[in-house]
């Protein structure tokens, strides 16, 4: 707009004097130079990279899981004084914000990574860093959407000179719960001046690790497997009968012909803590699954209403199958006669 105004003024002026004619290319040249210099400053300020150094492959439930990641921060155009932001993506049930300790060592000093306080937002999106990471990176290669991003930043701003490359290591320790599960942890990094900006590549980076198994020796405890695709999974992993729970049917893993049916239904039994059980196994709009993607269906239900629980009744588990309208095609756990199980717990 500014350039347009200038050139229009110049055009008017041009009619009056031929002397000013020569200024046009000079002005354009100056504008171009200014633009290139300014854009250069913005675009190539720094480049961030993250990689995994080590990550526990197996953890005993209740013990701490350890991860070490390497950060690199290359400063290209000018000196910077920023906080380094590191996010981790782990099962929601771990409540990582309360159970994680994180420290860093680097070429420009060592210190603690602290939880980013409420109210601090990613400058690129205006969202909290955790919400911005959730939106940008999701759950990566994990199959159960019951994970969360938790964001930390260095306890102090770190100063680094232009044309230097800073190397650092982040040491992460998270106290796990007694739940048996396996998942692929996610890591992300950026600095707090640009945040998760897409203005140019290199402002942030994320990576997901290999499968971490947090499994004990009790064979009677169900393992929640985030790493491998399941015909059915339930979300969220922590819930009571007064939540909305989602049971997912992944038809692409089902060897039966159920996935080719027009309509797919839930058929299951809820077990109460007072040893009662309630069956719901009739095709109806309430039990019908909703398509949610390629060969994916889901049913979202409020167990208290769905199973008609009396006041004070609580649920411990739902055992279920997916069926066609006639009930002749029935899919259970691993394509066996065993039902899928969703266990209620709240930690």
């Amino acid at each position, binding site marked *: 707009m500014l350039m347009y105004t200038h050139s229009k003024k110049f055009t008017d002026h041009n009619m009056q004097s031929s002397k000013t004619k020569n200024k046009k290319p000079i002005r354009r040249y100056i504008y171009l130079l200014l633009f290139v210099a300014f854009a250069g400053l913005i675009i190539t300020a720094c480049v961030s990279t993250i990689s995994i150094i080590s990550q526990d492959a197996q953890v005993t439930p209740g013990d701490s899981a350890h991860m070490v990641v390497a950060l690199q921060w290359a400063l290209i155009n000018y000196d910077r004084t920023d906080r380094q932001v590191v996010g981790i993506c782990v099962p*929601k*049930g771990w*409540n990582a914000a309360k159970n994680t300790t994180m420290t860093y060592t680097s070429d420009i000093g060592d210190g603690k990574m602290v939880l980013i306080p409420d109210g601090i937002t990613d400058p690129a999106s205006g969202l909290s860093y955790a*919400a911005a990471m*959730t939106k940008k990176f999701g759950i990566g290669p994990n199959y159960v*959407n019951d994970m*969360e991003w938790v964001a930390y930043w260095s306890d102090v701003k770190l100063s680094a000179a232009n044309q230097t490359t800073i190397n650092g290591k982040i040491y992460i320790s998270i106290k796990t719960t007694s739940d048996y599960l396996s998942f692929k942890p996610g890591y992300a990094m950026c600095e707090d001046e640009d945040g998760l900006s897409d203005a140019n590549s290199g402002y942030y980076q994320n990576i997901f690790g290999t499968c971490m198994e947090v499994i004990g020796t009790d064979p009677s405890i169900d393992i929640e497997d985030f790493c491998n695709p399941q015909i059915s999974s339930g979300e*969220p992993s*922590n*819930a*009571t*009968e*007064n*939540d*909305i729970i*989602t049971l997912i049917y992944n038809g692409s893993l089902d060897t039966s012909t159920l996935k080719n049916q027009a309509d797919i239904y839930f058929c299951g039994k809820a077990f109460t803590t007072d040893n009662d059980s309630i069956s719901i196994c009739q095709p109806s709009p309430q039990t019908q699954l*909703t398509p*949610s993607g390629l060969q994916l269906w*889901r049913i*979202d239900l*409020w167990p*208290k*209403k769905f199973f008609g629980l009396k006041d004070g009744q609580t649920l411990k588990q739902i055992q279920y199958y997916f069926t066609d309208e006639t009930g002749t095609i029935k899919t259970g756990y691993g394509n066996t006669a065993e039902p899928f199980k969703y266990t209620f717990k*709240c*930690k």
Partner: protein
Amino acid sequence: MYMSLRKILLPFISVVIMLSCTTKKEVLVEPVKDLNALWRLQTVTRNETDITQFIDSAGFRLNLSPDNTYTLQGDNIPFVVNVAAGTWSVDDPQYPYSITFKPTDSTNTFTGSIATPAIQGNRTLSIKFSPGCHSNAYVYTFEKVY
């Protein structure tokens, strides 16, 4: 004569000038958020994921009346309270941060935190609550029916 005029006029003009400089303080009063309305659900999120299209929320209506009574209709999803009628109140009419429901024939109260942003000139109502496990947070965002 000239002197006496100066003696009278000068103070008079000074007073007029001083009075003309008197500033008036404008006090901006935050409006009371009018939540009295029949509300319908616009979006439902569970743990920040939008699940609106997968749940039966189309018939859900929350009626907040000026006499501080409420009614619920079509509640096929868990809410702060799932008793069809009772009374409601907010902690501060100008800066409401929470809404409390007290069902009829009950001494228990149920509270959710609220936000009342005006979107395109229309007041909306967002209620955040955890009806089941404490680790799950739901945000129901309502728009006015009338």
